[in-house]
């Protein structure tokens, strides 16, 4: 599928999803919101980590930064602008940190990005305490839940569109080159450093914007709530289960994973984590390429017929 077809499909899908508030109950809309949010997070994560084979655990940091931008701007910035600002602040932070740490690889990079989350959490805690005399902020005026849903949908669609464009253009090629052999890519004229920073910042933009968009749902923003490592790990898990090399994989995974987790949680309130863990082990054993490899298999089979 070339870029134009993919973008048209995305537009059609987005329009269909935009109609959900009229079709679903409050609860199912909240479930759809969660699926769309994790689809956006997982796609933005895979945008950088998929082709380059880097493992970033910084999603929670970008997401949390975004929520704080909304909290800081509460009352002063309109909702749409806070979301944009949340994305820009996260992207700026990612570019700055990325310039310093993107030469690391493997476990070192993973550990340092996890440390970034802690750095942002403690940094914000310190700043708030020292200059504002508090750590938590109240967002008293929240938009309607349908507005939040549309905003999150818009940002997630933006993430998918960006992922498609990156994949099909020079930056995507450069990233894939870096993923398979960074030195060779550099020898062939790829500016590895600049490509990595650009993709890392772009991926952070969407995580930050999603954090900023979701913040208004939680009334009270404090470091423990918004730098919840759960959100970061869930994102990585969804992207990997889906297949981080693809775009459709993480989206399908966010939906399947979101619905399945919710189904198990509500049906087996005490056992669901055990069942979920077991399913994950099976998935890793028998579907190491992720959900996306199912598409590949199907395509391959059709080609043979």
């Amino acid at each position, binding site marked *: 599928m070339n870029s134009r077809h993919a973008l048209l499909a995305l537009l059609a899908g987005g329009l269909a999803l935009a109609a959900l508030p009229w079709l679903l109950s409050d*609860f199912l809309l909240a479930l759809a919101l969660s699926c769309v949010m994790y689809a956006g997070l997982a796609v933005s994560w895979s945008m950088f980590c998929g082709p380059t084979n880097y493992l970033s655990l910084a999603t929670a940091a970008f997401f949390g930064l975004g929520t704080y931008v909304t909290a800081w701007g509460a009352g002063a910035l309109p909702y749409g602008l806070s979301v944009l600002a949340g994305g820009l602040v996260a992207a700026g932070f990612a570019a700055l940190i990325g310039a310093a740490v993107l030469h690391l690889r493997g476990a070192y990079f993973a550990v340092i990005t996890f440390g970034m989350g802690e750095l942002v959490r403690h940094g914000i805690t310190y700043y708030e305490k020292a200059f504002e005399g508090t750590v938590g902020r109240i967002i008293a005026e929240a938009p309607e839940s349908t507005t939040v849903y549309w905003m999150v949908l818009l940002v997630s669609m933006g993430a998918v569109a960006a992922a498609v464009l990156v994949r099909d253009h020079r930056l995507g090629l450069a990233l894939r080159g870096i993923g398979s052999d960074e030195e060779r890519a550099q020898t062939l004229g790829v500016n590895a450093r600049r490509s990595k920073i650009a993709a890392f910042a772009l991926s952070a933009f969407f995580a930050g914007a999603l954090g900023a968009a979701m913040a208004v749902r939680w009334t009270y923003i404090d470091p423990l709530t918004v730098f*919840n490592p759960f959100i970061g790990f869930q994102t990585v898990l969804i992207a990997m289960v889906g297949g981080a090399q693809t775009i459709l994989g993480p989206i399908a995974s966010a939906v399947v994973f979101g619905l399945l987790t919710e189904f198990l949680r509500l049906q087996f309130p005490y056992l669901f984590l055990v069942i979920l863990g077991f399913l994950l082990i099976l998935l890793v054993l028998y579907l190491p390429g992720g959900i996306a490899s199912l598409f590949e298999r199907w395509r391959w089979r059709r080609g043979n017929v």
Partner: protein
Amino acid sequence: MGIVHFVRGAAAVALAAMAAVPALAQDVRIGYAISRSGPGAPGAQTSQEPNYIMWAEQVNAAGGLNVGGKKRKIELIGYDDRTDAETMLRTYEKLMTSDKVDLILPPWGTGLNFALMPLAQRHGYPMLSPTATGRKLLSLKNPYFFPLLQQPDVMMEALATFLKARGTKTAAVVHVDELFGLEQAAALEKAFKEKGIQIIEKKSYPFGVKDLQPVLRDIKAKEPGAFIALSYPPDTFLITAQSKALAFNPSAFYAAVGTAFPIYRDKMGAATVEGVMGLGTWNPKSGPAAKAYFDAHVARWKKEPDRWASAHCWAGLQILQQAVEKVGLDRKKIRDYIASTEFDTVIGKIRFKNGENVSTPGVVSQWQNGEFEVVWPPERATASSQFPKPGWN
């Protein structure tokens, strides 16, 4: 098209199963989400969910809730919120709008209670919250929110009065950088200033701190008359163990949240915690109702309830029950009744004024011979205080 069919099929199955089967019409359906996993789980499973379950069992064993002269059993619907705000909100949206439960019980902790407040107000569900405290919560002026714990300034005022009466001149304070620690520290500074107790050292530390020895060593060198840690459970354990290791033994040693947990005594050793003071409200000697609650909890769960929030949680359930038996299941009427009535509970009388529990006083408790004795105020005391604190054992 196999994958598409699979996804569609899975989604259909999941959605069908989520449209929960309605219970028998005559049951009173009470729903909640609570932390069974994630960072909130230890606290929620100590002070909160065991009480929810035991209350429903006790009411049902007695025939049920008396609604309009008819006994109706309670059906409790509880889910894990994974200590995640979004999961918690989604669960209550399901409970309130899809399942249309009769009543809700609140989630665990200040952050999650904050997040639930607007939803509870929109759908008109009263929240009797046992584990949320802070003036900031009250500043939202949410008419459906009734926090059961004492407010920080009330607790710190009691501590200051207690120490003043024992001639304390100087104090050192450490606090956790969280809403709780900051509000408590601000209230403590104000109360100490009024009582003329000088704070000679004040330090804060981040949540999740792993070592406080350097701070404690500095404080020990300054020889304060009282040491006050406005701490959360993990740091309460840490500060106790490290103060003992450094032989830092001021006349008054106070740590906030977690001292009231039986596991604090059991893990540190009853001899070690002898004389340690902390936040508490009650113990089995507080009265016959407290004794009955304590015994029932031990019989049901084979473990003791904590001496602070557990009984506040139980008191909230008692208030809910009294309100329902008085005005039925009309939630607006329940809210109005809670807001305007004085209730008899396991921790004494409770009355709410502008959402604040104005009846439960600030209490100082102290471990003595394996019991967390109430030592202040005198009308609630179950033992006289040990002052100065004995050495570490």
